[in-house]
Structure formats: C-alpha cells, structure tokens
C-alpha cells in the first residue's frame, strides 16, 4: 500500500510537470529533497524536468505562500514584466493554512488572483523538529522512513518507530481546517473540518497566570532569542518594505541583545499579525532557539474569534477586521480597563 504522501508526491510531480510543460505557469513552488533527512528544501521548479524532483512529506514546515511575491518579481525580471494580471504565473502547492495566507496576500494586494495557480493538498500535520530530536534523545537522525501512521527514525544504528502523530507540531494538532480553502486544483482526498475540543488550551494555560507570572513566562521564553529574525522572514504576513526593527529614523528598537528590545520585537511582530495569522506555525518551526512565539499570535487569534467571530483568509470577500471599520465593531474598553494590583490602581500621568 502506497502511503498518502507518496501518492501526493507522484501526482504533484505529474501535475506540476504538465503545467510547466504547457506553459500555463512559469514556475512551480514546492519542496525537493534536502541534504538532511528531516529537512526538505523549498524549491522552485522552472521546467518539467525540475518538477520530477518535487516531494511531499510530513516535514514541509515552511509556509510556501511566503515565497510567492518574491518569486513573481524574479519571474518578471526573467520573463519581462507583464501587467498585474497577464504576467507570468506561479504554481504553488498549498495546505489549509497556506491557502488562507494566499487569500490574505491577494486581499492585501501583494499580487493578483490571476498570477497564482494553487494546487491544494490536505495537510495531515507537519512534524516538529524539536519533538523529532527528543524522540531519539538528541541522537543524530541519519535516515527517516515515513508511513501513514508510523515514522521510523534511523538513529544510533537502529530504526526507532514513533507514532507519527506524537511528532506533529502544536499548531497542526489544534488545526481545524487541514483542507485548502482556496485552490484551483486539488490533489489527494480532503479530510473535512476537524473539531478540536480545546483549540486554545495552550493559550488558556498562560491566560490563567497572574500578569507578573505571564510577564515572567514571556521574558523567559524569549531570553535565548538571537534576533536572527527567522520568525519574521519566514512569515508570509511580514512583508513591510522596511520592518520597524530596521528603521533608523526614528529608531524604534535597539539592534543588539537587550531584554527590552527583544521583548518589543516579539510583541510588535505578533501584533502586526493580528487578524491575519493563520497559525501556520512556520515562525516557531524555523526558530533555532526553540522559542514558542507562536503562542502570542495564537492568543490574538483567540481574541479575534471572540471579538469579531473571525478567522482570516477563508475567502477573498470578507474584509480583514483590523483594517476595516464597522459601526458594530466591539467597543473595547482598552483605556479604562481596571488593572488593579495590590489594591492600587495605576494612575495615568499626562505628558
């Protein structure tokens, strides 16, 4: 019995190859084998022959939507720019969350609908690299065999079988929409919406702490940050032409390692994603230091759901709530929210 991901790989190769051969698309964004067994490589196929290298497995953790605007620019310079609609087209493989990010990108006018051809694939959940390494107690993983429900890790000269679901990332475990919501073609079977009993349990755990404890959690969590900005750069939502951390006039954030600066970076990064984040988990997957910054955006996702009953990227028509004004928007009592601590109400000083 051929595994689901192997079947998807075969069909993806065939379809991407056909699209490239026919000239419908100028490039196809997918994954190819990497040099490490647990690290497939985001890859641009430009010819039908390239498409034979495409793969699909449980290690495709980088949201490919992030690459689309840059690739379209490259293609414009390679092929000569067409207009916004008739320019060269990019094909891309997309799961539930990735397809929602493509919707948001189109809504935010990063590119037009006409310039992407989306091949949808239902995601069975992607593997958390840190979980993978702890499954073999930090031993080096020299090979991986993947079946539908078992992943065999070659480490220390033997094969260690691990139930696949045990290795899956937190965001995928709580994902309710594994199927692509927006696509041109679909490969493989959809799974339907999943119902998750407590999708925000990780957030609720932190919400139950006192403000001081929460701050302590946050400070501890980001204490090892090296400010490499992998979380920012891997995120399809982060595309400001000059990021606030790179601004120098005025300079909002210090450049080196300082607890306040690092905290400011993470807080502002998260807030910039409010109402737009699809919980694709890429930020957390790419962090070399294992920082769980995704919990910040997850909290904002929860707020969005509670306040606006809104999930981003489900269709092209519904406007993003934080960039639109409606008369019936919830009237948040932000300013006068009592933040009493030890019976003392903080006073607001002018100036």
């Amino acid at each position, binding site marked *: 019995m051929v595994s689901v991901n192997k079947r998807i790989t075969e069909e993806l190769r065939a379809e991407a190859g056909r699209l490239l051969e026919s000239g419908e698309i100028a490039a196809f964004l997918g994954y190819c084998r990497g*040099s490490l067994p647990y690290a497939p*490589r985001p*890859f*641009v196929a430009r010819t039908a022959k390239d498409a034979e290298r495409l793969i699909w497995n449980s290690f495709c953790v980088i949201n490919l939507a992030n690459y689309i605007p840059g690739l379209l620019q490259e293609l414009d310079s390679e092929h000569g720019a067409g207009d916004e609609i008739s320019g060269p087209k990019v094909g891309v493989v997309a799961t539930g969350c990735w397809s929602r990010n493509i919707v948001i990108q189109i809504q935010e006018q990063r590119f037009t609908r006409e310039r992407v051809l989306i091949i949808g694939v239902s995601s069975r959940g992607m593997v958390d690299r840190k979980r993978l390494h702890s499954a073999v107690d930090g031993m080096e993983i020299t090979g991986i065999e993947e079946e539908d429900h078992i992943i065999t890790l070659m480490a220390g000269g033997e094969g260690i079988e691990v139930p696949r679901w045990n290795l899956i990332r937190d965001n995928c475990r709580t994902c309710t929409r594994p199927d692509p919501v927006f696509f041109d073609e679909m490969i493989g079977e959809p799974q339907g919406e999943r119902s998750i009993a407590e999708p925000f349990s990780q957030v609720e755990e932190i919400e139950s702490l006192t403000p001081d404890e929460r701050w302590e959690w946050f400070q501890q969590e980001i204490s090892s940050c090296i*400010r490499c900005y992998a979380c*920012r750069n891997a995120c399809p939502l982060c595309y400001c032409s000059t990021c606030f951390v790179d601004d120098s006039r005025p300079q909002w954030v210090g450049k080196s*390692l300082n607890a306040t600066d690092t905290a400011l970076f993470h807080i502002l990064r998260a807030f910039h994603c409010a109402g737009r984040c699809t919980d694709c988990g890429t930020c957390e997957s790419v962090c*070399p230091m294992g920082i769980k910054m995704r919990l910040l955006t997850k909290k904002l996702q929860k707020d969005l759901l509670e306040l606006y009953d809104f999930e981003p990227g489900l269709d092209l028509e519904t406007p993003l709530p934080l960039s639109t004004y409606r008369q019936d928007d919830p009237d948040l009592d932000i300013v006068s929210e009592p933040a009493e601590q030890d019976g003392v109400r903080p006073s607001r000083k002018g100036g």
Partner: protein
Amino acid sequence: MDPDARKLLKTDWSHLLSILEERTDEMLILAPSLNEKGLVDWARFRAGERPVLERGLPLNSVKRFCFPQPEELFLFSCRPAEPGAFRLQEPARLEKNTVLFGVRPCDARSIELNRLPYEHDPYFNSRLESLMVIGIPCRETCSTCFCTWTGGGPQGTDGMDAAVWEYDEGVVVQLLSEKGEKFFSSLSATLLSREEFESLFASSFGNLSEDVQNPADLMKQKPLLSCYDAPFWQRVADSCINCGVCTFLCPTCYCFDIQDERLGGQGRRIRYWDSCMFPLFTQHASGHNPRGRKVQRVRNRFMHKLKYFPDRFGPLSCVGCGRCIRECPVNIDIREVLRDLLQVPGEESDS
C-alpha cells in the same frame, strides 16, 4: 592532535573537574549545558555539574566570547556641560578571565580564523587575552560536520590553550599554551612521555581517519568573476528566506555595525552583529542598495567565506562546524555551494 604540546599529562576526570570548581569564583567558567528548552548551549559551569559533552556542538558558537553581541566601545554623556558630567568614558571591562571548557576543534579553530581580520582590533584582542580555551577532540562526527573539508580536523588543537580527552583509565591533558599551563598548575597529574601519549592517542582515536582537505588554495585559483557569475546562485536564493540564522550561529561570521544608543542623559556606542543576509547591511544613505536583491545577498555570504576571505587571508572563513546546515530553516547547505564553486572552471594564469 598537536604533539608539540608544552606538557602532556594524565589524571582523572573528577580531579580535573575539581580544578574547574576551585576557580569558579575567580574566573567565569562556561561549559556546554542543557538549557531550559533541552538544547545544548553555553552556560555557567557549576560545581557538581558535569558538562554536557556527548550531545554535539552547543547551539551557539564561541564567537560571542571575543566578539560579544554587543561590544560597548565607549560611553558618552549627552549633557557634557552639566557639572560632574563626563564627555567620554571607557566602558567597564571584564573583571574576570573567561574559561571555556569543552570547546570542539572547529569552534577553537574559528577563534584563530577570526583573529585574521581582527588582527589590529583592540576589543577583540583584549577579550582574547583574557580568554582561556579548553578544548575536547571529537571521537565521532555528525552528518553535518565537515571540518576536514575546510583545513581542520576532529582532533585539531588550533586555538586551544589546553585539550582534554578521556581514555579507558582517566583523562589526558595537553597543555598547549602558557595560559593553559598556568591554569592547570595545581593539577596533580602524571607526566606522559611523547611515546606514551602517542600510544594512548592511537588507541583512543586511531580508528578515525583524518583525511584533511583544504580547498582554500583551489578557491584562490578560481577566477573571481566566474564564481560571481556562476549560474547556481539563483537556485540557492530560491530557497533562502534571508534570515540571520546562518550568520549569527556561524563561528566565523564576524561582520558588525556600529550605533549610538542613548538612554536619558547618557549614551553608549556599541558595535553589534550584523548579517549580510539583511538588506540594511548594504543600504546606502541615498536609498540605493548595491545588494538589493536576495540573490546578491546570498551570493555574498558564500563568496565572502569561500572566495574573498581566502583570497585576502589564506584559509576559508569556515571551520565546517555545520551549524548553518543543521539550523537553516530551508536546508541551504554550504557543502553543496562549495562543491559547486569548486566546479567553476579555473583559468590559466594571466598575470
């Protein structure tokens, strides 16, 4: 392994650690340790704890100990006219010497390589003077290790003041510098003859082949422009997200930027790590950016390490530690780039 050590000794592990324990007050001793996220990183060595030496390289390299993030260059007053204010002031320097215990040969060698561009740098050199490096040779290599491709080796001692390694009955201590000799002056140990050392070494490491290659000379012969214009750069750039993981974790990436930070009436001039992956790295005040495109930035990182640096200083600016390969979110592998560069046709000498 350097047989030209000043002294070759054998002792036992607990006695060796007790020497470190005795010094924890007068010196800052750092060793690989598991952090709260279960990752190996540098941490203060505490009496009674055994350094974590069996789980591969620490996440962060040793570069921060000579090239801290940030380095304070000087302090200044923003209100020098006020009574008692200073104009400029030296920042507080390290009060204690720093000892790094358990440094792998690649990391130790990186200090030697970084000394080349920092030859006349007072900040780097004063930190190096107060740094003591106790190395530990490698018995096995990871799949991401490639020190032997870069002119180093798993038992190399470049950059170490002392090297220690376990054998069946105890620990061998090689004292390689005056600092090393001084540090271990109170060690009660048996002096080893050259012959005894060599036979212990052979029985401990003899099965490890050490076929060291140094492609630096080959790279020096490659014509600069053919490397620069090589066709594979776009392919590497296709995957890259231009984050700073590789540069910040790399032991031999040494680029910095300088900035003044002000807080209230005082300020400090700092130099802090910069990354050639970031657009700001080459952004001109005019707004022009000579490396405005991702492909240009990606190319620069590898050209600097594998071509410009050897052209200028001799060796590659890479020690083969493999951190960039291991932690790259998109599996860009410098070994493939090196292989591709070595394929670039050479040129008959035209001088």
